[in-house]
């Protein structure tokens, strides 16, 4: 089992993730071409301006109005992306398999980052269960996406600390990571891919076409 999830399934997961992402972006661009307004409205300058105001915390009025959400959301997303890429154990695997290695973050830090991701998931779950607006637009798929996001980190945390059943948890951890990679392009987790495009379009429309701003 371990050989399967850490061998062929890794290949499948990465191929589906990369291939699927490219396909989805290609698909989005080609149906956007059908709409005659999309590309003529785009402007690099205003896209970048919009991105700068929305990827830097507290760089727009709305984020300043909601400090708790902003802090948790940014911490969650940064840790979610950075921790797995720069985790010592992950880099070692790349090193063993491909003789590739890069800079790593101390394990104590990645441990905390994992906890932050889990706290973020709990916060989002809490919002889904209690905030009336969010609750009203939440269905099974939203909980599933949250579970897909949380599981690699929960299992990773347990595996790192070897709390129990190390071998089983490790297999579950690898599996959970692979499921997440595979689902990103094909579910609303694809906001990871599309965020840049939706932001750029709205920024361009507000800035380039309407002489206004979107922050």
């Amino acid at each position, binding site marked *: 089992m371990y050989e399967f999830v850490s061998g062929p399934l890794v290949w499948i997961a990465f191929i589906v993730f990369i291939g699927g992402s490219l396909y989805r972006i290609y698909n*989005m*661009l080609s*149906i*956007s*071409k*059908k*709409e*005659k*307004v*999309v590309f*003529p409205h785009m402007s690099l300058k205003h896209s970048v301006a*919009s991105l700068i105001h*929305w990827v830097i915390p507290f760089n727009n*009025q*709305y984020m300043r*109005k*909601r400090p708790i*959400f902003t802090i948790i*959301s940014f911490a969650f997303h940064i840790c979610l992306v950075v921790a797995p890429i720069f985790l010592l154990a992950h880099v070692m695997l790349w090193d063993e398999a491909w003789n590739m290695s890069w800079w790593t973050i101390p394990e104590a830090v990645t441990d905390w980052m994992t906890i932050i991701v889990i706290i973020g998931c709990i916060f989002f779950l809490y*919002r889904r269960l209690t*905030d*009336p*607006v*969010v609750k*009203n*637009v*939440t*269905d099974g798929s*939203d909980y599933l*996406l949250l579970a897909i996001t949380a599981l690699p980190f929960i299992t990773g945390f347990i595996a790192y600390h070897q709390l129990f059943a190390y071998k089983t948890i490790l297999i579950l951890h690898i599996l959970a990571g692979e499921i997440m990679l595979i689902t990103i392009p094909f579910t*609303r987790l*694809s*906001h990871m891919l*599309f*965020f840049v*495009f*939706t*932001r750029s*379009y*709205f*920024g361009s*429309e*507000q800035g380039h*076409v*309407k*002489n*206004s*701003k*979107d*922050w």
Partner: protein
Amino acid sequence: MKPTIVKREPVVDDALDQCEARLTEEEIEKVINEVIDKETGGRLWTYINTCIHCGLCAEACHWYLSNDRDVSFAPVTKIKDTLWVMLEKKGKVDAAFIKRCSQIAHTECNCCRRCGMYCPFGIDIAYMILVVRRICAKLGMVPLYLQDTVHSHAATMNQMWVKPDEWIDTLQWQEEEAQGYVPSARLPLEKEGAEIMYSVIGPEPKFLAQLLGNITVIMKVAGLDWTMPATAGWDNSNMAMYSGDFEIMARVERLHHETAQRLKVKKIVMGECGHAFRGAEYDGPTWMGWMKPPIPVVHAIAFYYDLIKSGRIKIAKKVEGPITSQYPCNVIRNAGLGSKLRYIMSAVCEDFVDLIPNDRHAFCCNAGGGTINCGPPWKKIRVQSAKLQSENFKRTGAHTIVTPCHNCHSGIEDIVAGYKLGMHVKFFSELLIEAMEIPEHLKPKEE
């Protein structure tokens, strides 16, 4: 997903009720899929697939905030209750559902685009509401009064059933009125090659004719070469843009621009109206594939800014007392004229009290986006849902609210009456007429 709990007082709108009785499910399915497949593309697809259902847009919406945070008014809920269902069921919905869609899209959203600005992903929810309106319009599900204005556009090319002779009569009457202040003032009709074509919305000749007199005086004092058309094409308003009848919208915008081209003017200056600017500058040209207007369109705010800044109009005596101004969505958030508005307000007012929030973050008057044109049946909920902005006005302590937009003007008059604010509502040009200097040589000679 559980259906949204919606509590509304029943509203009788004959057009919606009759359409509900008439529509068949085959027709509905066909139109929904036609619009989704042929008229939408990357934007709708990406928005639907990117929205993570976080609900952050709710805090942006004055409908939601004014109705004690009733979730059925939140922007994301409005999409859930319309497009999500249409897409999930592939158009297989019933007439009652389409009626509710029209109620949501036409009467409970102003397409002010504040929620788009507050979405972390920049998802343009107002655009999606316009897609819903488009589907409703193609099915004939449009509130009675709104549809009446669309019929008027289609039949007369103006919003208010103004007849050609009434139009010319009104202009000549207002020219005479203006001559009471400035005897040499002229309202030149059909002057080919003038620098400016001035265009207004249907309600100006219908019941706000004094505004035409005001502009005649202002143009004379500023010494500008201007004209107005004597033919259809003078009306720059466009309610078809808001009902979702984009074919008629395009006819109206095309005629407006072609009239300016026929008169060989260098630019179109338009009266104080927000949606008219949006139609002439953006929605019309993009729908027709021009992308940009063939002749530049200048909104009244930018026009007055230039006149005051360049010194063509001088201010003799600033208007007294605290005065505030609405920031109309279509020319501020969606056209960036906020700082120019503050400049002209400070130039003519002794004590300009700014709104909070202001500029592109300001709230809608709740009349825009065609909601006020949905008429008396929908007035109660519209005024009730402007509670937040009524409080913002009250806080300024102003005696007058300036509205450089006709929709705002009518909407805010309703707010002032509904919440007993005891404030006046005026157009900017009315303040300017009071405050500007009329040079000696233009003044009437005393006999």
